[in-house]
């Protein structure tokens, strides 16, 4: 219901993120209902009225303290469950990186995403490198590896549909990866305040079918044979 | 029945206040020093820059400050023995040593700047000026406080417990230097 506001997930690991959000949502919803429910019930049940005197309960006796210790222990157990699930998901996304099939470099600068494609030779630093601002083209179902950099200030590459977000920091390089499961065009906002052009610093991710992608490659590098990039 | 009084003396209050102040100052210098150590261990070329510092001058300064801590402690001891002349003498010595420290530091800065190594000359220099500058400001504040106490001692008034609290602060400033000296001057 609430979580239907999440943008469409087109990422292989997006499911991990989403199911973790769902788990936490249900746990926290249950706690909310239980605690606020108890609160409201107590307020209704124990309004002051003639002849009723409050009970002097300090919570010093163990039988009384148990009423807070047991729920707190339950909180701890559920916390640990959330952490273990989170650890698994984090490892899948950040530590167990699959071998790359496509690579690009993305450099944030005030106020564009400079996307550098290695070209048909799949090497950076050669003559067929091509920089296209704000347009990230990838084929569907291929592992895309991105090297993330910044030319000036901190920006944040945010692909909501891929459940991917990574700050780009000048002076450092980060690696990120994704594998898109659906074709389409998706927005890439900048998610870290980067100056007066932060609002409107938008790129677009275009996920092509295999054929469309080959066509796009042919259009960008007309003289290339297409060897080195598998369609 | 007796009821223990939770009340306390102004001296006790002053000491508690000074210890908490020192605790927060430890975090200030700790933050700055920690940043320096992390930046230095992941950077290059810091040792070459550090070699431009004058270790002999800083060693003298270290002794100056250590001695000033001793004279400060002796001033407090004189106060405890109601020795007003001793209080005046040792406070004055402490102030003088503090001024010598600042003088040597100032001459170091002057010679650095004339050689062209200013705060903007590189990462090492930025941290050097940050750490020693912050420290020097604290030394200055201590000198001023000690001077105020000295003036009141000269007028024949007892400094009261304030000399102990000022002593705590002064020792803290000395200890910060004990960390700064090897980390800046002796590590290459």
């Amino acid at each position, binding site marked *: 219901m*609430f*979580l239907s*506001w999440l943008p469409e997930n087109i990422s292989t690991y997006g499911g991990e*993120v989403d199911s973790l959000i769902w788990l936490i949502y249900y746990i*926290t919803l249950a706690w909310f209902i239980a*605690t*606020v429910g108890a*609160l409201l019930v*107590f307020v209704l049940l*124990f309004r*002051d*009225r*003639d*002849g009723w*005197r*409050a009970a*002097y309960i*300090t*919570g*010093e006796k163990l039988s009384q303290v148990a009423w*807070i210790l047991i*729920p707190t222990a339950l*909180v701890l157990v559920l916390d640990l469950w*959330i*952490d273990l699930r*989170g650890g698994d998901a*984090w490892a899948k996304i950040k530590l167990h990186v699959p071998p790359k099939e496509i690579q690009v470099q993305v450099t944030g600068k005030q106020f564009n995403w400079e996307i550098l494609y290695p070209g048909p030779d799949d090497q950076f630093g050669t003559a067929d490198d091509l920089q296209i601002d704000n347009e990230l083209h990838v084929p569907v179902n291929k592992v895309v590896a991105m090297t993330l950099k910044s030319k000036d200030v*901190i920006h*944040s590459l*945010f692909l*909501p549909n891929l459940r991917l*977000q990574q*700050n780009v*920091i000048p*002076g450092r390089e*980060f690696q990120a990866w994704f594998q898109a499961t659906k074709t389409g065009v998706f*927005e890439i906002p900048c998610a870290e*305040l980067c100056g*007066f052009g932060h*609002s409107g610093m*938008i790129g677009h991710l275009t996920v092509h079918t295999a054929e469309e992608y080959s066509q796009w490659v042919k259009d960008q590098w007309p003289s290339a044979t297409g060897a080195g990039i598998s369609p | 029945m007796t009821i223990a*009084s*939770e*009340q*306390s003396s102004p001296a006790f209050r002053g000491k*508690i*206040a000074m210890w*908490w102040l020192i*605790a*927060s100052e430890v975090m*200030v210098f*700790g*933050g700055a020093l*920690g940043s320096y150590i992390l930046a230095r261990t992941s950077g290059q070329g810091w040792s070459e820059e550090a070699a431009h510092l004058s270790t002999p001058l800083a060693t003298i300064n270290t002794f100056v400050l250590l001695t000033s801590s001793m004279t400060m402690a002796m001033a407090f001891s004189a106060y405890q023995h109601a020795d007003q002349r001793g209080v005046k003498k040792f406070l004055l010595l402490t102030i003088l040593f503090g001024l010598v420290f600042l003088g040597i530091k100032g001459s170091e800065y002057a010679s650095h700047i004339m050689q062209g190594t200013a*705060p*903007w000359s*590189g*990462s090492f220099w*930025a941290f050097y000026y*940050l750490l020693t500058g912050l420290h020097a400001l604290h030394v200055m504040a201590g000198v001023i406080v000690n001077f105020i106490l000295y003036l009141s001692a000269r007028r024949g008034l007892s400094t009261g417990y304030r000399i102990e609290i000022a002593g705590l602060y002064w020792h803290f400033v000395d200890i910060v230097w004990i960390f700064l000296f090897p980390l800046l001057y002796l590590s290459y």
Partner: protein
Amino acid sequence: MTHPPSITPTPVSIVHPAHEARGFWRTYVFTIDHKTIAKQYLFLGICMASVGSYLAYVMRWQLAFPDESIPGFGFVGPETYNALITNHGTIMVFFVAMPILLGAFGNFLIPLMIGARDMAFPRLNMLSFWILAVAALVILTSFFVPAGGASAGWTGYAPLSARAEYTGVHWGINLWLLAHALEFVSFLVGGVNFLTTVITMRAPGMTFFRLPLVIWQLLTASIIFLLSVGPLIAAAVMLLMDRILNTSFFVPEGGGDPLLWEHLFWFFGHPEVYVVLLPGLGAVMEVLAVFSRKPIFGYRWIIYSTIAIGFLSFIVWAHHMFVNGINPRLVMPFSITTILISVPMSLIIFSMILTLWKGSIRLATPMLWALGFMVMFILGGLTGIVLGSAPANIQLHGTYFVVAHFHTVLLSVVIFGGFTGLYFWFPKMFGRMMNESLGKLHFLLTLIFFNLTFFPMHAVGLAGMPRRIANPLQYESLTAVQPLNVYITMSAVGLIVAQLPFLINFFWSIAAGRKAESNPWQAATLEWSAPSPPPHDNWGDTIPTVYRGPYEYSLPDVREDYIPQDRVHPSRSTWKAE
């Protein structure tokens, strides 16, 4: 041995010489009386809250109607929008939340609740306030310098904040840093004052475990602040050096590291939210006890949990940096500590709820605010869990979900907790009663508009709207949430307008409210033994002696409904049903 009830042992007290009338300036402006200083902090907080709310109004109107001129402001360009958000955050945290919850509540309550005549260092106390007032002036001035006010976010990330050319703002950010330096000094000195006072000036018989919980919360908050602000002070000096001396602490081209700023900032930034939280929580605890006529459940457990929260708050800071490029192997430890902080916090919440069990609950205005706090704080705290889980954080960092979360928790503390304390202690502060009907209206309107404003923001964040953007219409993916943005803006205006009943009630009651007796709420803590308002030295000739804990309500074999902390003996009789 029984003492005749009319004789109380005379404790040692430091009796200040009687203060004659000292003229307007010494009484109201350069006062050293903690009660007047508390009111100065309160008025400063209320004034700055108007400024901060105005900035929020302009921001929200711009978000709802991006290309239009904002009534009462004009057109908002992109640089202006960044200055609005930056100063809204800075002002609300450092010039509203902290002055009211720490400056006003702390200064007013500490001496009165521990049985002292004033703070340990009254003149330093006055200095603390005036330094903060100057800091407030500095930040207000920063709006009017060329290129306008600071615009790198309240978080001031480098290198955006480190080089003027990245923002186009030169003096605005320098003044912002100066204002921070001044307010750090103000709160540092204030915190030392609070700690020394509580440690050394408690009345005879007031042991640590007889202190009201709000004092424990203020104590812990002061310690947290004192120990966490240091690295940010160092960082602020470094940032100022980067801007003015062209050093490169945080600028990579000169060998610096932007992440260093983030670590130093958040090392303070996270404990700081607990510095704000704890006093508000304490005020609510006091009110829950008084208006349930019951002791707070689990007094010692709450204290131990508060201390645990204090410790844990120092080791969670990098949960603000999960996607900022820190080592991925560092992330899970911080995620674990972050989620674990919910353990002591939930213990405290359970204790507070259980305080209501078998109570005799009176729904006066302060109690309504306290219950409102409970509901809103539980909601806000629970949304923190999903943010604290690193993989979930990937999707929600930098979006309006974060904005919704921190406003829900912060405002539940500052607004609901703050008004709990204000309505409760108003009679003691000003010697008059506030109007109950206006108070209940204020509560109801605030509760409604608060939820209408911030609850939908969670959805906006889930949909992927980034923070700090000036124009949602630039994003095709956000067209679906724009109606929500308009709706939130209207509710925010409602929330601001809902404060009018309070302002009217507050100022009118100070001038012409019904005169208050010394203990209108029949509360047991020490401040209610003093007259309303207390005289300059709080207690007259003899400071009270404390014989019991702070929550002796509804004792089973005693006739009275409650026993004040400084009463020697209760009268003994079996309580009979009327």
